[in-house]
Structure formats: structure tokens, C-alpha cells
């Protein structure tokens, strides 16, 4: 398959004898929404950590758009066009909501360094108006001047998503974007992700909520105990007895 945006090849990761990932081979295709599911501790987050440079794989390679990612710093990987939402929101807690979104936009503009002291941040009209636009779009329009530590968990996740979106990434990695959300919030997030998907961006989503998975995913990979036990379209996965046994049976809502 040559239209793979992200190819994970023979990746292993062990923590002091614990094999969190073994022999992972996975291709993410251009513009698809690919869900990764599996029980807690299956190694899903670890896989994303290897992709964004937070962890170095014990063995194996990860290619993005033909570029080798292993050994690169997280900032270099991000600059190639990979953005990630974490399982525990990683935002700037001491900054206001709009400042949180302006920072990634400065990154997009200045790449890795810019000694921008000749202008004021409150007078960057272009960057501000785009930030306001995106935040309003994600339902955070009322919180622009609030410190982020006053936001609800769902709002924090949406904010982190906004921070990724303003970077216009090619690949968006989402780690349980609806965990801990109320039903209505989850549904709003599904609608939002559908809109993002429609822009043609490639998405990898780790998700426990099967309703979310089946509303969004083009393909699904099932992880258990650090290995891939199944892969296919949503219909194939639904009917796969191994998956039902390992995971779906106990978790379907």
C-alpha cells in the first residue's frame, strides 16, 4: 500500500521486561479515520507515544510521509505535520484560552524559533481572529479570556483539539477524546470530528466508546496485550469473534 501517510513497521516497546508493544505493523492511509481500540493497558497510548517521539521504540521504525520519525524530537515531528491530543489534556494551564491557541499559531508562523519582541501579542490581529474563529467553532467562544484551569474536562479536551487544528496538521492523533464526557458532549464531539474528517485530514483515534468508533472510523485496529489481534472495516470488526471475546463483548454500551 503506497498511499500510507504513517507506516509503523515491526515496532516493539518494552518497559523493564513488560512488552507493551510487540511486532506492530500498521499502515494509516491518506485521509482515512483509523480507530485503535482495545482494553486498558493494551498499549494504545504507548503506540502513539512512539509515533510522536515521546518514547523511543525498542525496535522498529515509524515512517511519516516517507520520513523516518524514530530518533526525532517531538518538536521536529510536530513540524512535519503531526499533531496530538493526549489522554490527559496537555494544555497551558496558566495561560488564557485564547493564548493557548495563539501559541501553536506562533509555532506555525515562526517554525522552531523567533525572537519576536518587535510586536505585541495583543496586536497580532490575523492570528487573533483565526484563534477566535476556531474557538468559537469549537464552542469555546465564551471562555476566550479565562484561565484554562477554570475549564471543565470536556472543554479542556476541546481546547487541546483547537490547539492542534490551528496548526493545520496532516495527521491528527487523538487519545480518547471523549473520555469522561457526558453523552451530549460526546455527541457534539462526534459531530465536530466528522466535520474535521470532511476536510480530508488523516485521523488516528483511540476510543473506548464504540458509538464514537462506529460513527467515525473507516478502519479499525484492535490491540490486546501489545499485539494487533484484528484489523478491518467496522463491519468486519463487529463480526470478528476474537474481538468480541477480547473486548467488545464486555465493553459495548
Amino acid at each position, binding site marked *: 500500500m503506497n498511499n500510507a501517510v504513517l507506516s509503523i513497521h515491526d515496532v516493539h516497546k518494552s518497559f523493564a521486561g513488560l512488552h507493551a508493544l510487540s511486532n506492530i505493523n500498521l499502515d494509516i492511509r491518506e485521509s482515512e479515520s483509523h480507530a485503535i481500540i482495545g482494553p486498558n493497558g493494551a498499549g494504545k*497510548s504507548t503506540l502513539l507515544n512512539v509515533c510522536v517521539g515521546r518514547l523511543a521504540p525498542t525496535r522498529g521504525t515509524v515512517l511519516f510521509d516517507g520520513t523516518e520519525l524514530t530518533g526525532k524530537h517531538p*518538536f521536529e515531528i*510536530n513540524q512535519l505535520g503531526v499533531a496530538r491530543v493526549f489522554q490527559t489534556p496537555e*494544555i*497551558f494551564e496558566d495561560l488564557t484560552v485564547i493564548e493557548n491557541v495563539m501559541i501553536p499559531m506562533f509555532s506555525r508562523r515562526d517554525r522552531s524559533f523567533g525572537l519576536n519582541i518587535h510586536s505585541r501579542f*495583543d496586536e497580532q490581529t490575523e492570528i487573533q481572529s483565526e484563534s477566535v474563529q476556531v474557538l468559537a467553532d469549537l464552542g469555546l467562544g465564551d471562555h476566550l479570556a*479565562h*484561565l484554562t484551569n477554570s475549564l471543565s*474536562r470536556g472543554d479542556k479536551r476541546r481546547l487541546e483539539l483547537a*490547539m492542534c487544528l490551528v496548526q493545520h496538521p496532516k495527521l491528527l492523533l487523538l487519545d480518547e477524546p471523549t473520555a469522561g464526557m457526558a453523552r451530549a458532549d460526546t455527541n457534539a464531539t462526534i459531530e465536530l470530528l466528522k466535520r474535521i474528517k470532511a476536510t480530508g485530514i488523516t485521523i488516528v483515534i483511540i476510543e473506548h466508546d464504540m458509538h464514537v468508533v462506529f460513527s467515525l472510523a473507516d478502519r479499525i485496529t484492535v490491540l490486546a496485550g501489545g499485539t494487533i489481534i484484528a484489523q478491518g472495516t467496522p463491519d468486519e470488526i463487529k463480526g470478528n469473534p476474537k474481538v468480541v471475546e477480547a473486548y467488545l463483548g464486555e465493553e459495548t454500551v
Partner: protein
Amino acid sequence: MFGISKINDIMLLVAFAAIILAGPIILEPIGASYPDLLQKFAIFGIFAIGFNILFGLTGYLSFGHAAFLGVGSYAAVWSFKLLSMNAIPAIAIAVVLSGLFALAIGYVSLRRAGIYFSILTLAFAQMSYNLAYSVLTPITNGETGLRVLRTDPRYLDVMFGADVGAAQPTTNFFGIEMTGWPGFYFCGIVLIAAFAFSIVIFRSPFGMTLRAIKSNQNRMGYTGFNSRPYLMSAFIISGMYAGLAGSLLAVTDPLAGAERMQWTASGEVVLMTILGGAGTLLGPVLGAGIIKYFENIFSAFNESVLNSLFEFMPEDVRHVVVEVAGLFVGDGWHLTLGVLFMIVVIFLPGGLMEGAMRVLRIKHSPKVTNIGKSPQRDIVGEGAIEENLDDRVRTAPARSKPTG
């Protein structure tokens, strides 16, 4: 949207300048209106403003900033000896040299964060201090300290036809002698410029980036930022501020000694910044002023002053009171400083600026829970609104839950 604006900041700067320039009048009632002390306020204010650009914005706590102060002083005195008694070349050389020095120390120290960074900077400063006393004696003149002599060459002064060697030379600014009130006004104007530049940094995208690094350096990586060059820039800028302050110490008193680089001096600027409010614009200047003022007042007290102060008390009681109070004054004034510092850290971790904010706007001021986790907002131009404190309490434990 941000609660700040250019107009606000210009007003802040104008008010600041007015207060500094009127300092001799304003500080008259508290007995601080003499040039030597006011110069110190200004110089250490500059030192603390620079320190705050590093510590207040990035959260990197340097314990070695006195090294840059020392480098600035030595560089300035050498400029007086070799080039000219004019303050300008001395300041220029001091700022450039301390910047280069900061580049070298920062290059190594910034490879680590947190306590390791602090220890590396402390180690470098102590190393500089010891070197100044030992192998670098030809440059620093060791324990005697570096001073200007009548016989120094002063090539620039000679070139411009000054009568070098006629009398004991004094520092000057194009002919204006840098002693007494002119000395204070010179330092005061430099302080105003230093303050203005710190406003520029605080309000720039660069400053916002530094605050983001302080808030979550991890996220900066996943946002495409290489934090290192930003931290280096902040470190160098704050080192240059320290060098500037060091050179002004030499301008007002052309003598440089290694004790200026000692760890106590590094610790003092940390206290000033935290006492006033790290991450705020005004806090560091306030902290510097208060510490230098108390140092001056309390260290001058002695037993006879205390005795006359408590004269109204009966003999026996007075004896005890004077005995106890005596611990806190004179050489013991550091005890006073320690107590003051503890009170602030425990009750006002955001420093005096946080206290002022609480008084002026009780509800909407962000509560500071940790030193260094500053509100990063001043009274003037406060922009952030923090609501739903209950909500935060509710979600806080959830955030620390281990995640699978």
C-alpha cells in the same frame, strides 16, 4: 480580550518614570532620600527586573545570577582603567561581556531543568567567585578588589585630550560627575529604560512563548517549539541585565570585588523577585526596594538606638525587649529578612503584587498556590478571569488519576 493594551502599558511606564524621578521627594518621609541608597534601589531594581525575565517568565530558577553582576562590575572598572572614565563605554562593554558569559553558562546549564538547572548555575557562580580570588587575580586583583588608579592609561580619555593622571579620576557621563544626585538620576533613567524593555518583552509573542514554556514545556514540544533557543535568549537577556546592574555599581563607586559574585548575592535577587511577585512587571522592583531599604534601616540600628526607642518602658522590661529586638537589627538584620520572607512565602506565594491584587480586586485575582507559579498579571492590565473555583477543585483529583 487580553485585558491589556498599549495605552495601559504606556500609562504604566509614565507613572513608573514619574515615581522614580520623584523618588527623592516621595521617599523623604521614610528617611530614604539620599543618593547612595536610592542608587542602590535603582541598580538592584534593574538586577531583579532582569532576573524576573528568566525566572518570572520561564520558571527557570537561576542561583548564580550574581556571577553576571560581578562580570559587569569588573568589565566596567577595566573600561575605566583602559578606555575612559565615561560611563557609556563601561556599560556597553559590561553588557556585552556578561551576555557572552551568560551564553556560555546557559549553554551548559539549560541542558537540565528544575533543581538541576539551579544547581548548575550555582556551581558556575561559585566557581567564578573562587576563580576571581585565585587564578584570575591578575584580572580581578583578588581580595583587594579592582580599583581605578591615577596612573591607569585611559587611552580614550587621552585621545580626547583629557589631563589623565592629574587628579584621582572620577566616573562621569560626558563631564557630569556620577556621584550624589546626578549619579542617582543616571541610574534612575537606566532603570526606567530597563523597565520599558521588560514591558516590551512581557507583551511580545516571545514573552508569551516563555510563559507557555513555564506552564507546560512538554506541550511546547508537541506544538513544534524547540524550547532551548527561547530559554537561551531569556537567560542571556537576564544575564545582560545583571551585567548592566553590575556596571552601574561600578559607575557609582568604581571598585569591583569578588564578594559581589557570592551565592548570598545570587540568593538576594531571588528573594527580591519572589518577595515582590515573580512574573509581574512591578514586583521585582518593589522587592528590590524593600529589601535594600530594610537592609539599610535595620542594619543601622544598634543597642543605644533601641534603648532610646523603648525609653518609655520600665527599666527591666526594656532590658528584655532591647535584648530580643537586638537580634533582629544590626548584623542580625538577615533574621528580619528571613522572617519577612517566610511570611510572604507562606501567606502570599505570589508576592506583594498578589497581595495588592487581592486587596484591589478581591474576587477576580487568580490565587497563587505555589512559588514561581505566579499570576503573571499585574494590577495594571490584569487580563485573566478565573471562575468556577469549585469546578477546579472538583476536577483536580481527576487529573492526577493514573491514566492507562
